[in-house]
Protein backbone atom coordinates (compact mmCIF):
# COMPACT_ATOMS: atom_id res chain seq x y z
CA UNK A 1 0.00 0.00 0.00
CA UNK A 2 1.61 3.20 -1.10
CA UNK A 3 -0.17 6.24 0.12
CA UNK A 4 1.55 9.52 0.65
CA UNK A 5 0.26 11.75 3.38
CA UNK A 6 -1.57 14.71 1.88
CA UNK A 7 -2.29 18.06 3.44
CA UNK A 8 -4.59 20.80 2.26
CA UNK A 9 -2.86 24.15 2.00
CA UNK A 10 -5.30 26.92 2.88
CA UNK A 11 -3.46 29.46 0.77
CA UNK A 12 -3.37 33.21 1.29
CA UNK A 13 -5.21 33.59 -2.02
CA UNK A 14 -8.05 31.33 -0.93
CA UNK A 15 -8.27 33.23 2.37
CA UNK A 16 -8.36 36.53 0.49
CA UNK A 17 -11.12 35.31 -1.83
CA UNK A 18 -13.27 34.22 1.10
CA UNK A 19 -12.68 37.51 2.92
CA UNK A 20 -13.65 39.39 -0.25
CA UNK A 21 -16.83 37.25 -0.40
CA UNK A 22 -17.64 38.24 3.18
CA UNK A 23 -16.87 41.88 2.30
CA UNK A 24 -19.22 41.80 -0.71
CA UNK A 25 -21.85 40.21 1.53
CA UNK A 26 -21.52 43.00 4.09
CA UNK A 27 -21.65 45.65 1.35
CA UNK A 28 -24.79 44.11 -0.20
CA UNK A 29 -26.49 43.78 3.18
CA UNK A 30 -25.77 47.39 4.08
CA UNK A 31 -26.91 48.55 0.65
CA UNK A 32 -30.09 46.49 0.99
CA UNK A 33 -30.79 47.99 4.42
CA UNK A 34 -30.20 51.53 3.15
CA UNK A 35 -32.53 50.96 0.19
CA UNK A 36 -35.15 49.47 2.49
CA UNK A 37 -35.09 52.21 5.10
CA UNK A 38 -35.32 54.93 2.44
CA UNK A 39 -37.92 52.95 0.49
CA UNK A 40 -41.69 53.09 0.65
CA UNK A 41 -42.40 50.99 3.71
CA UNK A 42 -42.91 53.91 6.08
CA UNK A 43 -46.52 54.61 5.24
CA UNK A 44 -47.63 51.05 5.86
CA UNK A 45 -46.25 51.05 9.36
CA UNK A 46 -48.19 50.47 12.54
CA UNK A 47 -51.68 49.21 12.08
CA UNK A 48 -53.38 49.31 15.39
CA UNK A 49 -52.13 46.63 17.76
CA UNK A 50 -49.42 45.46 15.37
CA UNK A 51 -45.73 46.04 15.41
CA UNK A 52 -44.26 48.36 12.88
CA UNK A 53 -42.17 46.55 10.32
CA UNK A 54 -38.61 47.73 9.96
CA UNK A 55 -35.48 46.49 8.27
CA UNK A 56 -34.29 45.07 11.61
CA UNK A 57 -37.00 42.40 11.45
CA UNK A 58 -35.95 41.36 7.99
CA UNK A 59 -32.26 41.30 8.89
CA UNK A 60 -33.07 39.21 11.97
CA UNK A 61 -35.03 36.69 9.91
CA UNK A 62 -32.22 36.39 7.34
CA UNK A 63 -29.66 35.86 10.09
CA UNK A 64 -31.89 33.21 11.64
CA UNK A 65 -32.22 31.37 8.30
CA UNK A 66 -28.43 31.25 7.99
CA UNK A 67 -28.03 30.18 11.63
CA UNK A 68 -30.28 27.18 11.08
CA UNK A 69 -28.87 26.33 7.67
CA UNK A 70 -25.17 26.39 8.58
CA UNK A 71 -25.64 24.84 12.03
CA UNK A 72 -27.33 21.99 10.17
CA UNK A 73 -24.44 21.52 7.75
CA UNK A 74 -21.96 21.55 10.64
CA UNK A 75 -23.70 18.96 12.78
CA UNK A 76 -24.76 16.76 9.87
CA UNK A 77 -21.11 16.73 8.76
CA UNK A 78 -20.31 15.09 12.10
CA UNK A 79 -23.34 12.83 11.55
CA UNK A 80 -21.90 11.67 8.19
CA UNK A 81 -18.57 10.94 9.88
CA UNK A 82 -20.21 8.98 12.70
CA UNK A 83 -22.40 7.09 10.24
CA UNK A 84 -19.35 5.75 8.41
CA UNK A 85 -18.04 4.22 11.63
CA UNK A 86 -21.36 2.89 12.87
CA UNK A 87 -22.01 1.27 9.47
CA UNK A 88 -18.37 0.12 9.21
CA UNK A 89 -18.23 1.67 5.77
CA UNK A 90 -15.00 1.22 3.84
CA UNK A 91 -15.48 3.18 0.63
CA UNK A 92 -15.51 6.58 2.32
CA UNK A 93 -12.09 6.35 4.02
CA UNK A 94 -10.62 8.97 1.68
CA UNK A 95 -13.24 11.68 2.19
CA UNK A 96 -14.19 11.34 5.87
CA UNK A 97 -12.02 14.24 7.02
CA UNK A 98 -14.03 16.74 4.95
CA UNK A 99 -17.35 16.36 6.83
CA UNK A 100 -15.42 16.11 10.09
CA UNK A 101 -14.04 19.60 9.43
CA UNK A 102 -17.63 20.95 9.09
CA UNK A 103 -18.02 20.40 12.84
CA UNK A 104 -15.55 23.21 13.57
CA UNK A 105 -18.35 25.66 12.80
CA UNK A 106 -20.40 24.34 15.76
CA UNK A 107 -19.08 26.60 18.56
CA UNK A 108 -19.44 29.71 16.38
CA UNK A 109 -22.89 28.57 15.27
CA UNK A 110 -23.93 28.11 18.90
CA UNK A 111 -22.79 31.58 19.94
CA UNK A 112 -24.40 33.20 16.88
CA UNK A 113 -27.67 31.43 17.49
CA UNK A 114 -27.81 32.31 21.17
CA UNK A 115 -26.93 35.95 20.55
CA UNK A 116 -29.37 36.34 17.69
CA UNK A 117 -32.10 34.73 19.78
CA UNK A 118 -31.63 37.41 22.42
CA UNK A 119 -31.47 40.19 19.84
CA UNK A 120 -34.17 39.12 17.35
CA UNK A 121 -36.08 36.44 19.27
CA UNK A 122 -39.05 38.67 20.01
CA UNK A 123 -39.56 39.46 16.31
CA UNK A 124 -38.99 35.88 15.21
CA UNK A 125 -41.07 33.91 17.65
CA UNK A 126 -44.71 34.72 18.25
CA UNK A 127 -44.64 32.69 21.49
CA UNK A 128 -42.23 35.18 23.13
CA UNK A 129 -45.04 37.74 23.41
CA UNK A 130 -46.07 37.90 27.06
CA UNK A 131 -49.66 38.91 26.37
CA UNK A 132 -50.37 35.41 25.05
CA UNK A 133 -50.16 34.02 28.57
CA UNK A 134 -52.04 36.79 30.33
CA UNK A 135 -55.74 36.01 30.72
CA UNK A 136 -56.55 39.70 31.11
CA UNK A 137 -54.83 40.69 27.86
CA UNK A 138 -56.66 40.92 24.54
CA UNK A 139 -53.74 38.95 23.09
CA UNK A 140 -54.45 35.95 25.36
CA UNK A 141 -54.23 32.64 23.47
CA UNK A 142 -55.45 29.53 25.25
CA UNK A 143 -53.73 27.15 22.78
CA UNK A 144 -50.27 28.66 23.19
CA UNK A 145 -50.90 29.15 26.91
CA UNK A 146 -51.36 25.38 27.22
CA UNK A 147 -47.95 24.82 25.58
CA UNK A 148 -46.05 27.37 27.66
CA UNK A 149 -44.18 24.84 29.80
CA UNK A 150 -42.33 23.70 26.66
CA UNK A 151 -40.69 27.12 26.45
CA UNK A 152 -40.75 28.64 29.93
CA UNK A 153 -40.41 25.78 32.43
CA UNK A 154 -39.61 26.14 35.36
CA UNK A 155 -40.97 29.69 35.08
CA UNK A 156 -44.22 28.65 33.37
CA UNK A 157 -46.38 30.31 36.02
CA UNK A 158 -44.96 33.73 35.17
CA UNK A 159 -43.57 33.38 31.63
CA UNK A 160 -40.74 35.86 31.28
CA UNK A 161 -37.50 34.21 30.18
CA UNK A 162 -37.82 31.02 28.09
CA UNK A 163 -35.49 29.07 30.39
CA UNK A 164 -36.28 25.60 29.08
CA UNK A 165 -35.91 26.72 25.45
CA UNK A 166 -32.52 28.37 26.04
CA UNK A 167 -31.35 25.47 28.21
CA UNK A 168 -32.15 23.06 25.39
CA UNK A 169 -30.26 25.22 22.89
CA UNK A 170 -27.18 25.37 25.15
CA UNK A 171 -27.45 21.67 25.94
CA UNK A 172 -27.67 20.63 22.28
CA UNK A 173 -24.75 22.74 21.15
CA UNK A 174 -22.69 21.71 24.16
CA UNK A 175 -23.38 18.03 23.63
CA UNK A 176 -22.78 18.18 19.88
CA UNK A 177 -19.54 20.09 20.31
CA UNK A 178 -18.35 17.73 23.04
CA UNK A 179 -19.00 14.62 20.93
CA UNK A 180 -17.45 16.26 17.86
CA UNK A 181 -14.21 17.12 19.71
CA UNK A 182 -14.04 13.60 21.16
CA UNK A 183 -14.46 12.04 17.71
CA UNK A 184 -11.87 14.36 16.22
CA UNK A 185 -9.41 13.63 19.02
CA UNK A 186 -9.75 9.90 18.40
CA UNK A 187 -9.31 10.41 14.65
CA UNK A 188 -6.03 12.28 15.15
CA UNK A 189 -4.88 9.81 17.79
CA UNK A 190 -5.24 7.11 15.11
CA UNK A 191 -2.88 9.09 12.85
CA UNK A 192 -0.19 8.99 15.52
CA UNK A 193 -0.64 5.54 17.02
CA UNK A 194 -2.03 3.36 14.24
CA UNK A 195 -3.68 0.07 15.10
CA UNK A 196 -7.39 -0.56 15.35
CA UNK A 197 -8.08 0.60 18.92
CA UNK A 198 -9.06 4.13 17.84
CA UNK A 199 -11.35 2.76 15.16
CA UNK A 200 -13.23 0.61 17.69
CA UNK A 201 -13.48 3.53 20.10
CA UNK A 202 -14.78 5.78 17.34
CA UNK A 203 -17.36 3.17 16.37
CA UNK A 204 -18.65 3.01 19.93
CA UNK A 205 -18.76 6.78 20.27
CA UNK A 206 -20.42 7.09 16.84
CA UNK A 207 -23.22 4.76 17.85
CA UNK A 208 -23.82 6.88 20.97
CA UNK A 209 -23.72 10.05 18.87
CA UNK A 210 -26.25 8.71 16.35
CA UNK A 211 -28.78 7.91 19.07
CA UNK A 212 -28.31 11.33 20.68
CA UNK A 213 -28.47 13.05 17.29
CA UNK A 214 -31.69 11.26 16.32
CA UNK A 215 -33.47 12.85 19.28
CA UNK A 216 -31.72 16.21 19.45
CA UNK A 217 -31.96 17.03 15.74
CA UNK A 218 -35.73 16.54 15.78
CA UNK A 219 -36.23 18.63 18.91
CA UNK A 220 -33.90 21.30 17.51
CA UNK A 221 -36.07 21.46 14.38
CA UNK A 222 -39.24 21.93 16.46
CA UNK A 223 -37.61 24.54 18.68
CA UNK A 224 -35.80 26.66 16.14
CA UNK A 225 -38.00 26.34 13.07
CA UNK A 226 -41.42 24.85 13.75
CA UNK A 227 -42.16 27.00 16.82
CA UNK A 228 -42.15 30.06 14.55
CA UNK A 229 -45.61 29.00 13.36
CA UNK A 230 -46.67 28.47 16.96
CA UNK A 231 -50.18 27.16 16.32
CA UNK A 232 -49.19 24.87 13.54
CA UNK A 233 -47.47 21.52 13.95
CA UNK A 234 -46.37 18.63 11.81
CA UNK A 235 -45.16 15.27 13.07
CA UNK A 236 -42.90 15.05 9.99
CA UNK A 237 -41.09 18.27 10.74
CA UNK A 238 -37.96 16.92 12.46
CA UNK A 239 -37.41 14.58 9.55
CA UNK A 240 -38.11 17.27 7.03
CA UNK A 241 -35.48 19.62 8.46
CA UNK A 242 -33.02 16.76 8.83
CA UNK A 243 -33.56 15.62 5.22
CA UNK A 244 -32.85 19.14 4.01
CA UNK A 245 -29.68 19.45 6.13
CA UNK A 246 -28.50 15.98 5.12
CA UNK A 247 -28.74 16.44 1.36
CA UNK A 248 -27.11 19.90 1.62
CA UNK A 249 -24.20 18.40 3.53
CA UNK A 250 -23.80 15.55 1.05
CA UNK A 251 -23.76 18.02 -1.83
CA UNK A 252 -21.18 20.18 -0.04
CA UNK A 253 -18.94 17.17 0.69
CA UNK A 254 -19.12 16.26 -3.01
CA UNK A 255 -18.36 19.80 -4.09
CA UNK A 256 -15.35 20.15 -1.78
CA UNK A 257 -14.07 16.70 -2.79
CA UNK A 258 -14.15 17.72 -6.46
CA UNK A 259 -12.50 21.05 -5.60
CA UNK A 260 -9.67 19.26 -3.76
CA UNK A 261 -9.25 16.72 -6.55
CA UNK A 262 -8.91 19.53 -9.10
CA UNK A 263 -6.13 20.95 -6.95
CA UNK A 264 -4.33 17.61 -7.38
CA UNK A 265 -5.11 16.46 -3.84
CA UNK A 266 -7.04 13.39 -2.66
CA UNK A 267 -5.21 11.10 -5.10
CA UNK A 268 -6.84 8.06 -3.49
CA UNK A 269 -10.33 9.26 -4.42
CA UNK A 270 -11.34 8.16 -7.92
CA UNK A 271 -14.51 8.03 -10.00
CA UNK A 272 -15.77 5.02 -8.01
CA UNK A 273 -15.87 7.07 -4.80
CA UNK A 274 -17.40 10.02 -6.64
CA UNK A 275 -20.02 7.66 -8.02
CA UNK A 276 -21.01 6.63 -4.48
CA UNK A 277 -21.18 10.12 -3.03
CA UNK A 278 -23.05 11.24 -6.17
CA UNK A 279 -25.55 8.44 -5.61
CA UNK A 280 -25.97 9.76 -2.08
CA UNK A 281 -26.85 13.23 -3.40
CA UNK A 282 -29.25 11.73 -5.95
CA UNK A 283 -30.91 9.36 -3.48
CA UNK A 284 -31.33 11.93 -0.71
CA UNK A 285 -32.70 14.55 -3.08
CA UNK A 286 -35.43 12.02 -3.71
CA UNK A 287 -35.64 11.30 0.04
CA UNK A 288 -36.10 15.00 0.78
CA UNK A 289 -38.87 15.15 -1.83
CA UNK A 290 -40.50 12.09 -0.32
CA UNK A 291 -40.53 13.66 3.16
CA UNK A 292 -41.63 17.03 1.78
CA UNK A 293 -44.47 15.44 -0.16
CA UNK A 294 -45.54 13.17 2.71
CA UNK A 295 -45.98 16.26 4.86
CA UNK A 296 -47.72 18.17 2.07
CA UNK A 297 -50.12 15.52 0.76
CA UNK A 298 -51.73 14.69 4.11
CA UNK A 299 -52.34 18.34 4.86
CA UNK A 300 -53.62 19.00 1.31
CA UNK A 301 -55.93 16.01 1.31
CA UNK A 302 -57.31 16.30 4.84
CA UNK A 303 -57.96 20.03 4.28
CA UNK A 304 -58.14 20.98 7.97
CA UNK A 305 -57.82 24.78 8.26
CA UNK A 306 -55.35 24.86 11.15
CA UNK A 307 -53.03 22.63 9.13
CA UNK A 308 -53.54 24.06 5.65
CA UNK A 309 -52.66 27.57 6.87
CA UNK A 310 -48.99 26.59 6.53
CA UNK A 311 -49.33 26.01 2.81
CA UNK A 312 -51.82 28.82 2.29
CA UNK A 313 -49.09 31.18 3.51
CA UNK A 314 -46.52 29.65 1.18
CA UNK A 315 -48.31 28.40 -1.92
CA UNK A 316 -51.49 30.49 -2.36
CA UNK A 317 -49.47 33.63 -1.96
CA UNK A 318 -48.22 36.11 -4.55
CA UNK A 319 -44.94 36.64 -2.74
CA UNK A 320 -43.90 33.12 -1.89
CA UNK A 321 -45.91 31.13 -4.45
CA UNK A 322 -43.15 31.32 -7.04
CA UNK A 323 -40.42 30.32 -4.58
CA UNK A 324 -42.58 27.39 -3.50
CA UNK A 325 -42.22 25.92 -6.99
CA UNK A 326 -38.61 27.06 -7.42
CA UNK A 327 -37.86 25.06 -4.27
CA UNK A 328 -39.30 21.87 -5.76
CA UNK A 329 -37.66 22.47 -9.12
CA UNK A 330 -34.15 23.07 -7.71
CA UNK A 331 -34.27 20.35 -5.08
CA UNK A 332 -36.15 17.61 -6.88
CA UNK A 333 -36.60 17.99 -10.64
CA UNK A 334 -33.05 19.13 -11.48
CA UNK A 335 -31.02 16.73 -9.32
CA UNK A 336 -33.40 13.87 -10.16
CA UNK A 337 -33.08 14.23 -13.91
CA UNK A 338 -29.46 15.43 -14.10
CA UNK A 339 -27.97 12.87 -11.72
CA UNK A 340 -29.90 9.89 -13.05
CA UNK A 341 -27.39 8.69 -15.70
CA UNK A 342 -24.42 6.72 -14.39
CA UNK A 343 -21.83 8.92 -16.10
CA UNK A 344 -23.24 12.06 -14.47
CA UNK A 345 -22.10 10.74 -11.09
CA UNK A 346 -18.73 9.38 -12.24
CA UNK A 347 -17.46 12.52 -13.96
CA UNK A 348 -17.08 15.87 -12.30
CA UNK A 349 -18.68 18.03 -15.02
CA UNK A 350 -22.34 17.48 -14.09
CA UNK A 351 -21.68 17.04 -10.35
CA UNK A 352 -20.03 20.46 -10.37
CA UNK A 353 -23.26 21.98 -11.71
CA UNK A 354 -25.78 20.00 -9.67
CA UNK A 355 -24.20 20.22 -6.21
CA UNK A 356 -24.21 24.06 -6.05
CA UNK A 357 -27.84 23.98 -7.26
CA UNK A 358 -28.74 21.60 -4.42
CA UNK A 359 -26.77 23.63 -1.86
CA UNK A 360 -28.50 26.85 -2.93
CA UNK A 361 -31.86 25.11 -3.34
CA UNK A 362 -31.93 24.02 0.27
CA UNK A 363 -31.13 27.52 1.42
CA UNK A 364 -34.34 28.45 -0.41
CA UNK A 365 -36.05 25.60 1.42
CA UNK A 366 -35.09 27.07 4.80
CA UNK A 367 -36.08 30.52 3.56
CA UNK A 368 -39.56 29.12 2.86
CA UNK A 369 -39.76 27.48 6.29
CA UNK A 370 -38.85 30.65 8.18
CA UNK A 371 -39.73 33.84 6.26
CA UNK A 372 -43.50 33.49 5.59
CA UNK A 373 -44.18 32.73 9.26
CA UNK A 374 -42.16 35.67 10.59
CA UNK A 375 -42.36 38.51 8.07
CA UNK A 376 -45.73 37.62 6.49
CA UNK A 377 -46.48 40.11 3.70
CA UNK A 378 -43.36 42.17 4.52
CA UNK A 379 -40.97 39.44 3.42
CA UNK A 380 -39.00 39.60 0.26
CA UNK A 381 -35.92 38.41 -1.50
CA UNK A 382 -33.21 40.80 -2.41
CA UNK A 383 -29.87 42.21 -1.41
CA UNK A 384 -30.17 41.56 2.32
CA UNK A 385 -30.97 37.86 1.81
CA UNK A 386 -28.16 37.42 -0.68
CA UNK A 387 -25.73 39.50 1.38
CA UNK A 388 -26.25 37.62 4.65
CA UNK A 389 -25.96 34.33 2.77
CA UNK A 390 -22.56 35.44 1.40
CA UNK A 391 -21.35 36.56 4.84
CA UNK A 392 -22.32 33.30 6.51
CA UNK A 393 -21.17 31.13 3.57
CA UNK A 394 -17.80 32.85 3.42
CA UNK A 395 -17.27 32.63 7.17
CA UNK A 396 -18.39 29.00 7.25
CA UNK A 397 -16.01 27.99 4.45
CA UNK A 398 -13.19 29.97 6.06
CA UNK A 399 -13.57 28.11 9.35
CA UNK A 400 -14.05 24.72 7.68
CA UNK A 401 -11.14 25.00 5.23
CA UNK A 402 -8.93 26.34 8.00
CA UNK A 403 -9.80 23.30 10.12
CA UNK A 404 -9.24 21.01 7.12
CA UNK A 405 -5.74 22.39 6.57
CA UNK A 406 -4.73 21.59 10.16
CA UNK A 407 -4.67 17.81 9.69
CA UNK A 408 -3.84 15.31 6.92
CA UNK A 409 -6.62 15.03 4.33
CA UNK A 410 -7.14 11.35 4.97
CA UNK A 411 -6.20 9.02 7.80
CA UNK A 412 -3.16 6.99 6.77
CA UNK A 413 -3.77 4.47 9.56
CA UNK A 414 -7.48 4.00 8.90
CA UNK A 415 -8.17 0.25 8.92
CA UNK A 416 -10.67 0.86 6.11
CA UNK A 417 -8.18 2.62 3.83
CA UNK A 418 -7.18 -0.56 2.00
CA UNK A 419 -10.80 -1.38 1.25
CA UNK A 420 -11.32 2.15 -0.05
CA UNK A 421 -8.30 1.87 -2.36
CA UNK A 422 -9.82 -1.22 -4.00
CA UNK A 423 -13.32 0.19 -4.10
CA UNK A 424 -15.04 -0.55 -7.40
CA UNK A 425 -18.64 0.08 -8.43
CA UNK A 426 -20.27 -1.18 -11.59
Amino acid sequence: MTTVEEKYDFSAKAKKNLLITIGIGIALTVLGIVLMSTGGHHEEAAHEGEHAFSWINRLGVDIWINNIYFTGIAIVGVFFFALQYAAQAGWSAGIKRIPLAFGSWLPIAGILMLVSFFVFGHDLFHWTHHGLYDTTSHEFDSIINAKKAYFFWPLSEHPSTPVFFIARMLFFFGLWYYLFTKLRKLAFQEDLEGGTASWYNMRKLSAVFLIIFAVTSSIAAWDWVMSIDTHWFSTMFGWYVFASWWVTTLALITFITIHLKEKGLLSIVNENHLHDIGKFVFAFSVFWTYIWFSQFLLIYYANIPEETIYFVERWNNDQYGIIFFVNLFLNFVLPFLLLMPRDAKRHTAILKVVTPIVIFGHWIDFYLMITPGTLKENGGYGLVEFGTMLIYGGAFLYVVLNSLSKAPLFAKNDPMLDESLHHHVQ
Partner: protein
Amino acid sequence: MSNTKFILGVYEDEDILLSAITNIRTAGVKIHEVYSPFPVHGIDDVLGYKRSKLSIVAFLFGVLGTSLALTMQIGMMGVDWPMIIGGKDFIPYPSFVPVIFELTVLLAAYGMCFTFFIVSDLKPWAKPRIFDLRITDDKHVMAIDLDQNKIDVAKIDQILKDNGASEVNKKTFDEA
Protein backbone atom coordinates in the same frame (compact mmCIF):
# COMPACT_ATOMS: atom_id res chain seq x y z
CA MET B 1 -28.96 -27.45 -36.69
CA SER B 2 -25.30 -27.83 -36.04
CA ASN B 3 -22.84 -28.89 -33.43
CA THR B 4 -21.21 -26.16 -31.44
CA LYS B 5 -17.78 -27.00 -30.10
CA PHE B 6 -16.24 -25.24 -27.14
CA ILE B 7 -12.87 -25.31 -25.46
CA LEU B 8 -13.17 -24.76 -21.75
CA GLY B 9 -10.39 -23.34 -19.57
CA VAL B 10 -10.95 -24.04 -15.88
CA TYR B 11 -9.53 -21.51 -13.40
CA GLU B 12 -9.18 -21.73 -9.65
CA ASP B 13 -8.51 -18.12 -8.74
CA GLU B 14 -10.16 -14.91 -9.90
CA ASP B 15 -6.93 -12.89 -10.01
CA ILE B 16 -5.33 -15.46 -12.32
CA LEU B 17 -8.56 -15.49 -14.33
CA LEU B 18 -8.54 -11.71 -14.79
CA SER B 19 -4.95 -11.59 -16.07
CA ALA B 20 -5.60 -14.68 -18.22
CA ILE B 21 -8.57 -12.98 -19.89
CA THR B 22 -6.44 -9.95 -20.75
CA ASN B 23 -3.59 -12.08 -22.16
CA ILE B 24 -5.87 -14.40 -24.12
CA ARG B 25 -7.73 -11.52 -25.69
CA THR B 26 -4.49 -9.79 -26.70
CA ALA B 27 -3.36 -13.09 -28.28
CA GLY B 28 -6.34 -12.71 -30.62
CA VAL B 29 -8.59 -15.43 -29.20
CA LYS B 30 -12.27 -14.52 -28.96
CA ILE B 31 -13.87 -15.52 -25.65
CA HIS B 32 -17.49 -16.69 -25.83
CA GLU B 33 -18.28 -16.23 -22.12
CA VAL B 34 -16.77 -16.63 -18.66
CA TYR B 35 -18.76 -18.38 -15.92
CA SER B 36 -18.00 -17.88 -12.25
CA PRO B 37 -19.65 -18.87 -8.97
CA PHE B 38 -19.61 -15.29 -7.63
CA PRO B 39 -19.39 -11.77 -9.08
CA VAL B 40 -15.80 -10.92 -10.00
CA HIS B 41 -15.03 -7.21 -9.78
CA GLY B 42 -13.66 -5.70 -12.97
CA ILE B 43 -14.42 -8.73 -15.16
CA ASP B 44 -16.69 -6.69 -17.46
CA ASP B 45 -13.85 -4.31 -18.19
CA VAL B 46 -11.24 -6.95 -19.07
CA LEU B 47 -13.76 -8.84 -21.20
CA GLY B 48 -14.41 -5.59 -23.04
CA TYR B 49 -18.14 -5.70 -22.42
CA LYS B 50 -20.00 -2.53 -23.17
CA ARG B 51 -22.30 -1.23 -20.47
CA SER B 52 -25.77 -2.72 -20.62
CA LYS B 53 -28.51 -0.55 -22.14
CA LEU B 54 -31.02 -1.99 -19.69
CA SER B 55 -31.09 1.22 -17.63
CA ILE B 56 -32.35 3.15 -20.68
CA VAL B 57 -35.11 0.57 -21.07
CA ALA B 58 -36.00 1.03 -17.41
CA PHE B 59 -36.18 4.80 -17.87
CA LEU B 60 -38.43 4.51 -20.93
CA PHE B 61 -40.77 2.07 -19.19
CA GLY B 62 -40.81 4.45 -16.21
CA VAL B 63 -41.87 7.33 -18.46
CA LEU B 64 -44.55 5.05 -19.92
CA GLY B 65 -45.78 4.30 -16.39
CA THR B 66 -45.91 8.01 -15.52
CA SER B 67 -47.90 8.82 -18.66
CA LEU B 68 -50.23 5.87 -18.15
CA ALA B 69 -50.96 6.87 -14.54
CA LEU B 70 -51.60 10.49 -15.52
CA THR B 71 -53.83 9.58 -18.47
CA MET B 72 -55.77 7.05 -16.44
CA GLN B 73 -56.45 9.37 -13.52
CA ILE B 74 -57.23 12.43 -15.60
CA GLY B 75 -59.51 10.29 -17.76
CA MET B 76 -61.35 8.72 -14.84
CA MET B 77 -61.50 11.60 -12.37
CA GLY B 78 -61.60 14.55 -14.72
CA VAL B 79 -63.34 13.46 -17.93
CA ASP B 80 -65.31 10.24 -17.57
CA TRP B 81 -66.99 10.78 -14.20
CA PRO B 82 -66.03 14.06 -12.50
CA MET B 83 -66.81 14.13 -8.79
CA ILE B 84 -66.22 16.67 -6.07
CA ILE B 85 -64.04 15.03 -3.43
CA GLY B 86 -62.97 17.04 -0.39
CA GLY B 87 -63.55 20.31 -2.22
CA LYS B 88 -60.66 19.63 -4.60
CA ASP B 89 -60.49 20.32 -8.32
CA PHE B 90 -61.74 17.62 -10.65
CA ILE B 91 -58.12 17.03 -11.60
CA PRO B 92 -56.17 17.38 -8.32
CA TYR B 93 -52.60 16.69 -9.40
CA PRO B 94 -51.10 16.37 -5.87
CA SER B 95 -53.49 13.50 -5.12
CA PHE B 96 -52.36 11.74 -8.28
CA VAL B 97 -48.72 11.60 -7.20
CA PRO B 98 -48.84 8.33 -5.17
CA VAL B 99 -50.45 6.48 -8.09
CA ILE B 100 -48.04 8.07 -10.57
CA PHE B 101 -45.13 6.94 -8.39
CA GLU B 102 -46.43 3.38 -8.02
CA LEU B 103 -47.15 2.86 -11.71
CA THR B 104 -43.78 4.38 -12.68
CA VAL B 105 -41.94 1.98 -10.39
CA LEU B 106 -44.10 -0.99 -11.39
CA LEU B 107 -43.66 -0.52 -15.12
CA ALA B 108 -39.96 0.28 -14.84
CA ALA B 109 -39.34 -2.88 -12.78
CA TYR B 110 -41.48 -5.25 -14.86
CA GLY B 111 -40.41 -3.70 -18.15
CA MET B 112 -36.76 -4.09 -17.23
CA CYS B 113 -37.23 -7.69 -16.04
CA PHE B 114 -39.10 -8.90 -19.09
CA THR B 115 -36.77 -7.06 -21.46
CA PHE B 116 -33.90 -8.84 -19.75
CA PHE B 117 -35.64 -12.23 -20.12
CA ILE B 118 -36.30 -11.67 -23.81
CA VAL B 119 -32.83 -10.33 -24.61
CA SER B 120 -31.13 -13.15 -22.69
CA ASP B 121 -33.41 -15.74 -24.30
CA LEU B 122 -34.64 -16.90 -20.89
CA LYS B 123 -37.92 -18.76 -21.12
CA PRO B 124 -39.43 -21.68 -19.19
CA TRP B 125 -38.76 -24.12 -22.04
CA ALA B 126 -35.24 -22.88 -22.75
CA LYS B 127 -32.62 -25.64 -22.63
CA PRO B 128 -29.66 -24.41 -20.65
CA ARG B 129 -26.12 -25.03 -21.84
CA ILE B 130 -24.24 -26.37 -18.86
CA PHE B 131 -20.54 -26.06 -19.56
CA ASP B 132 -19.34 -27.45 -16.28
CA LEU B 133 -21.30 -28.19 -13.12
CA ARG B 134 -18.49 -26.83 -10.96
CA ILE B 135 -19.21 -23.21 -12.05
CA THR B 136 -21.89 -23.18 -9.33
CA ASP B 137 -19.36 -24.31 -6.75
CA ASP B 138 -15.69 -23.35 -6.84
CA LYS B 139 -14.38 -23.07 -10.42
CA HIS B 140 -14.29 -20.30 -12.99
CA VAL B 141 -14.79 -21.55 -16.54
CA MET B 142 -13.82 -19.66 -19.67
CA ALA B 143 -15.68 -20.90 -22.78
CA ILE B 144 -14.14 -20.35 -26.22
CA ASP B 145 -16.33 -20.98 -29.24
CA LEU B 146 -14.31 -22.78 -31.93
CA ASP B 147 -16.53 -21.51 -34.76
CA GLN B 148 -15.61 -17.95 -33.86
CA ASN B 149 -11.89 -18.58 -33.83
CA LYS B 150 -9.72 -19.42 -36.82
CA ILE B 151 -6.83 -20.40 -34.58
CA ASP B 152 -5.66 -23.98 -34.32
CA VAL B 153 -7.21 -25.96 -31.40
CA ALA B 154 -3.86 -27.14 -30.07
CA LYS B 155 -2.63 -23.57 -30.00
CA ILE B 156 -5.66 -22.35 -27.99
CA ASP B 157 -5.05 -25.24 -25.59
CA GLN B 158 -1.50 -24.07 -25.16
CA ILE B 159 -2.48 -20.41 -24.61
CA LEU B 160 -4.97 -21.42 -21.94
CA LYS B 161 -2.45 -23.60 -20.12
CA ASP B 162 0.25 -20.92 -20.34
CA ASN B 163 -2.11 -18.50 -18.63
CA GLY B 164 -2.77 -20.56 -15.55
CA ALA B 165 -5.71 -22.81 -16.47
CA SER B 166 -5.82 -25.80 -14.14
CA GLU B 167 -7.64 -27.95 -16.72
CA VAL B 168 -8.57 -27.61 -20.38
CA ASN B 169 -11.69 -29.50 -21.47
CA LYS B 170 -13.80 -29.76 -24.59
CA LYS B 171 -17.54 -29.73 -24.82
CA THR B 172 -19.91 -30.16 -27.73
CA PHE B 173 -23.57 -29.18 -27.71
CA ASP B 174 -26.01 -30.79 -30.15
CA GLU B 175 -28.47 -28.11 -30.98
CA ALA B 176 -31.67 -28.70 -32.79
